[in-house]
């Protein structure tokens, strides 16, 4: 399947098994389900026959009763009935397994393909999208919501379809004894549906309330314990305890409310009344000679099959609604649009490294600009330091260069050509951005360094690591370059991760390097390494460094001071020392 956008263009496409309809959750689920049709047949067959065979027991017990109480009971005939019961139930076991396992396979298959579809879709989304989207939310969709869709089928649909069959059987079997006997099960089904719908309507807001109050309780609890030092330091133990007490009472009240609603579960009462009514009705017909005792037994027995849907309903229906909710969220995510186009015909040349910002205005939405009046002129090979407090717009500024975001007004030029006129791939291939939180995979150090150039030789990797001042600390590990990092391996400090990211960048040799430098070194030896690595990385290419380091600021060719989305000062260190008071302050002791 390809990731389709409204313009039909995306940043990445990959072929997979089949296409789906992404218009509504229902259609989407259906388009996935259709591909599981052999298992659906197996499951449905299992479900229907399960109910049918279940009814064999009361029916044949009824017949056996008639035979036993007849004038000349034949053991042979009773034996036949017993055989029918035995074989049918054994068969029923097999078919019930088919139903269960069939739904299970459907559920797992759909989970697999849905997750795959979501992932391909995410890969195809633009860098803009990924910069705006929180990873936590993506994770929730890819794991929890996909799981909910799985549960929707098994146990959800499994139990619902299974139980629907059980509802139908008394409706079918009753009339075989006497047409009037259809009355009681029919009445039950109608009343059952009504009371169930009513019940779920009342229950749903209450379960949300329970979930919410629990979430509240839990999060404040976690905070108080995490920050216990602050709590104690500020002598706030009593107020925290009071707060917890109140939250706990709220949760208790909501739980009791839920328990009260659940205790009133009417379908259970309905079942009791139905059994009595059915029995009474059958006895009347018996008195009038329309049916015999065996029939009464059989009918009463099939009525008890109604018990299964009654007990199952609570749990199964809510599972299905949760599943659809999850499907809706996943679909919403997949349908979020890609706005940037690749401009395949665009400008594609080796970059020299001149960057220009002309009257740039930028914001995520049109009413709140993050950047205003941005005018900068950078020559090829210059090192530019960008400084400012948090929220001054530094990161957004640099992301305009490789078209992670597009400007709203003004233009950004690379080598004199508007970035929107560049072929996106060519532009991005030659620009490297090293983020604040360096992402490394749970693989070997060598693999991580070579991530951008998979066919790099070990020699090239080592060379890159040396230039990034990482070679020494890599060798300090037992397995050197083959050391696995991450959860299953060693943990690296911020400075070490930064240098690995620099090594990664060295291998791909970008013409423009953007570095978000936010690490700090505790000791001067590490600081020396980091300084060297950064200065080395900036050689021979246009480099923009968002930094706090005074040495980087001091020796940059151009310094850009930002405040609240605007440039308040730009120039060399000497110029700024003359012109800007706040800049002077930084370099005072």
């Amino acid at each position, binding site marked *: 399947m390809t990731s389709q956008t409204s313009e039909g263009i995306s*940043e990445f496409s990959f072929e997979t098994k089949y296409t789906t309809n992404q218009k509504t959750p229902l259609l989407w689920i259906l388009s996935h389900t259709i591909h599981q049709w052999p298992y659906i047949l197996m499951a449905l067959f299992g479900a229907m026959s399960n109910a049918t065979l279940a009814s064999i027991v009361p029916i044949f017990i009824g017949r056996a009763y008639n*035979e*036993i109480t007849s004038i000349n*009971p034949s053991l042979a005939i009773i*034996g036949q009935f017993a055989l029918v*019961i*035995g074989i049918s139930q054994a068969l*029923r076991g*097999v078919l*019930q397994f088919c139903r269960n396992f069939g739904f*299970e396979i459907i559920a797992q298959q759909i*989970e697999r393909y849905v997750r795959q579809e979501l992932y391909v879709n995410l*890969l195809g989304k633009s*860098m803009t999208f*990924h910069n705006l989207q929180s990873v936590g939310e993506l994770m929730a969709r890819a794991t929890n919501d996909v799981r909910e869709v799985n549960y929707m089928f098994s146990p959800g649909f499994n139990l619902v379809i299974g139980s629907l069959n059980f509802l139908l059987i008394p409706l079918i079997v009753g009339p075989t004894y006497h047409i009037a006997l259809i009355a009681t099960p029919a009445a039950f089904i109608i009343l059952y549906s009504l009371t169930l719908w009513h019940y779920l309507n009342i229950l749903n807001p209450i379960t949300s309330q329970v979930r919410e109050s629990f979430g509240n309780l*839990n999060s404040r609890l976690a905070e*108080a314990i995490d*920050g*216990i*030092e602050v709590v*104690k330091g*500020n*002598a706030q*133990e009593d107020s925290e*305890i009071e707060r917890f*007490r109140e939250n*706990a009472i709220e*949760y*208790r009240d909501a*739980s009791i409310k839920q*328990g*009260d609603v659940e*205790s*009133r579960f009417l379908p*259970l009462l309905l079942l009791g009344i139905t*059994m*009595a009514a059915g029995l*009474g009705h059958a*006895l009347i017909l*018996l*008195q009038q000679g329309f049916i015999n*005792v065996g029939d009464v037994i059989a009918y009463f027995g099939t009525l008890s099959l109604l018990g299964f849907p009654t007990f199952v309903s609570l749990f199964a229906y809510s599972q299905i609604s949760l599943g659809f909710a999850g499907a809706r969220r996943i679909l919403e995510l997949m349908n979020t649009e890609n706005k940037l186009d690749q401009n395949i015909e665009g400008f594609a040349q080796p970059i020299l490294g001149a960057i220009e910002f002309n009257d740039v205005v930028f914001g995520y939405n049109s009413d709140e600009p993050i950047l205003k009046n941005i005018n900068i002129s950078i020559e090829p090979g210059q090192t530019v330091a960008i*400084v400012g*407090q948090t929220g001054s717009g530094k990161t957004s500024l640099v992301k305009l260069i490789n078209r992670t975001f597009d400007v709203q007004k003004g233009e950004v030029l690379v080598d004199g050509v508007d970035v929107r006129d560049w072929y996106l791939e060519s532009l991005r*291939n030659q620009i490297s951005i090293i983020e604040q939180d360096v*992402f490394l995979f749970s693989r070997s150090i060598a693999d991580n360094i070579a*991530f951008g150039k*998979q066919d790099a030789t070990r020699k090239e990797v080592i060379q890159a690591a040396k230039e990034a001042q990482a070679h020494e600390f890599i060798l300090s590990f037992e397995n050197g370059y083959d050391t696995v990092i*991450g959860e299953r391996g060693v943990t690296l400090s911020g400075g070490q991760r930064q240098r690995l990211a620099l090594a990664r960048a060295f291998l791909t040799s970008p013409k423009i390097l953007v570095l978000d430098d936010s*690490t700090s070194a*505790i*000791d*001067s030896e590490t600081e020396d390494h980091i300084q060297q690595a950064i*200065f080395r990385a900036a050689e021979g290419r246009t480099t923009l460094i968002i930094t*706090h*380091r005074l040495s980087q600021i001091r020796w940059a060719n151009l310094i850009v001071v930002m405040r*609240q989305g605007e440039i308040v000062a730009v120039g060399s260190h000497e110029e700024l020392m003359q012109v800007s008071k706040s800049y002077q302050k*930084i*370099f005072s*002791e």
Partner: protein
Amino acid sequence: MGFFSGLAAEKYDRQYSDKRLLKRILDYFKTQSKRLFIVGITIVLISVIEAAMPIVVSRGLDKVTQQIISSSLILTLTGIVLGLGIFSWLANFLRRRYSARTIADLIRQLATDAFQASVHQDMSFHDSFSSGKIVSRITSDTREFGQLITLSTDVLMQTITSIILSVVLIRTEWRMALAVFLLVPLLFFLVMQYRHAAREITRDGMRAMANVNATIKETVSGIAIAKNFRQEEAIYEEFQEANQTSFKVNIKRGFILSIVFPTLRAIAGIATALLVYFGAISILEGFVTAGAWYLFLTTVDRFLHPVMSVSSFFTQVQTGLSAAERIFALIDSEHSVEQKGAVYPKNLDGQIDMISVEFSYTPDEKVLNNFSLHIDPGETLALVGHTGAGKTSIGRLIARFYEFQGGKILIDNEDIRNYDLISLRRQMGIVPQVPFLFSGTIEENIHYGCPICDQDEILKIANQIGEGEWLETLPNGLDTEVGERGSQLSMGQKQLVALMRVLIQKPSIFILDEATASIDPFTEKQIQTALDLILSETTSILIAHRLSTVRSSDRILVMRQGEIIEEGNHEQLTAQGEHYAELYNTYFRHQSLEYVEEAKKYVKK
């Protein structure tokens, strides 16, 4: 759901004796005795009704077969069945209502007591118990314990019903009864086998799924960087593998779990068939009536239910009791920091004396040995030294977060153990290395330092820092939401908020563990201003990581392995050229302007 619960239960080593645990549990149950009594009665009622239903129907059938059916018979029979059905629902209604209240209140009580106990514990307790563990005990363990109660009532009801029915069956025809009873151990054995297999595969499955989930997490988080390097295909391969593995593991598990109920159904069905035949023989030989035969047939199912519940009962009880124990362990654990007196300090001068103090966190690692220190009121003291030198311990002992083993600590010449701890701490401002913020607005966080102060005072203090320029960097000024643990703020902003909390508190003693994270130079200056404001009004103990701090302190203590090896101010110690000079060169020099100027040597362009 009876059979499937507790398959993934972890092991927990019980420390409490059963007797002690039961006594603790009974203490809590005592508060709910009235409700429990009602629940008990309803349980018995429901069990009796459940047993009565098939008995009534079978007797009725006998009557119906043997006599002429009169309208009064129909009415009676229908009436009884109707009555039983309604009563059953009513009894269940009551049972659920009262169980819900009992359990909800029990959980609330336990959770509140556990939280209270945790909060009042000292820091050594919180060092050995991760916060995740404590939270889990307060929320999920209490819930698990509640579930144990629900489970127990269910099992009790089913067992009573089965016992009543067993008695009736034996009295009707003991040979057939025995045949039915034989079914129970057979089913039980089968169910236990299944549980064993299911538990194995669940455990394996969980391990496999943990790996898969980790890979999925990584491949999803890594999409942005994969795009950066045009490595989409490579990361897709990795994802696919994990997705496939997840599928295979789950199918295996689904297979095993799908077999259980069908197998039991089939066995019950075959047992029914056998009963039909051999029961018929009994009838023809005059041992039982047809109605009794019918009774046997309909009760086979009833015996099935308890077997399912009881099979998981033992594991569930263990898990439930373990959960209960974990909660009680929390509530009952001892405090190591005990105050002896209750002096309420009004305005401390802030003189601190440590006299021959002995302190270790754990019995084998001594941190402070015969340690003595005198601090004048209003003095600013900086502590420097390598990791593990004992710097943090001093602040922690003065804050009374930990108990020391020997010597004395005096504050304003009064033994620290004689103070009322809450009042004492109100006179102290404590800022840890990573400032902690609660979710809420900045104002709420600052307010935490002085609950009685109003908004104007907060605004005044905020504006003392560089004319409130730092507020402009925030989307909503003081009303900006800081997010969980302050995640929406930068490290520098968090520091400022933490310092402002102290400023508004106006303490006599200030203890600061300086942050080591990199902060932009503008915010750095603002933090400096805030710090200077605090230092001028308090006795301060600073664990120094910033150059400006050591420069401006009245006195610097150089520590090593719990001892003071050098003492003096920055100029004196630098001139001496010994330990301090070495530390300076390692930890502080690269923060100096001298170093900045020297960086020129790296610039080749």
